[in-house]
């Protein structure tokens, strides 16, 4: 009987942009000088246009 051994390549885990606490999921502060300022609730610089999604 032969045992087939497969070597799996571990995919690097994507860096999460949030951390999880008991009562919340919180954005990780990062960016320049470690001072990430979430100055808007959505980063989208422009709205999603009808023509893009129709």
């Amino acid at each position, binding site marked *: 009987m032969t045992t087939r051994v497969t070597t799996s390549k571990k995919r690097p885990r994507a860096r999460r*942009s949030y951390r999880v606490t008991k*009562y919340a999921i919180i*954005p990780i502060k990062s960016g320049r000088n470690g001072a990430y300022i*979430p100055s808007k*609730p959505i*980063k989208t610089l422009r*709205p999603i246009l*009808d023509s*893009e999604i*129709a």
Partner: protein
Amino acid sequence: MPSPESTFFVDTSFHISYCFERERHEEARSLIRAIRNRFSNPTFVTTNLIFTETLNLIQTRDWIAKQLRWSTARQVGKDIITYNVIGIITAEMFRLAWELFERQEQKHRSWSFVDCTSFVYIREIRKKQYGQDRLTIKNALAFDSDFDEAGREFGFQVFRE
């Protein structure tokens, strides 16, 4: 803990308006501009139920092509997770929201259940029992009249320019 004045609760109606041209996008954008002018480090808070409701709404909109609904929902969801504190509706908050929802008839109003969870969350998350996740939220970003009605009772106001 962020200052109460610069902590903004974000409702589904606002997330949708801020994302889509066809909704009240200009109004939403102008409110964010006003916040950025006034506060250097605002905090935006939403809940796991609002997150769910927003993505569900996107995935069921007729005006978004069927094959693009999932990717659009993913894009918006990723933004919300990256830029907002997502508060978790606890079992106790859920219970209180259900009681509030059930009392709607005698108060002659018809707030949605998700709105009820949001109002309860804003009131409850101030309490000491939530430790480091405690927040005092004084402002809400919403285009939903339920928020105008509930503000006084739950200790917040809908942010206007």
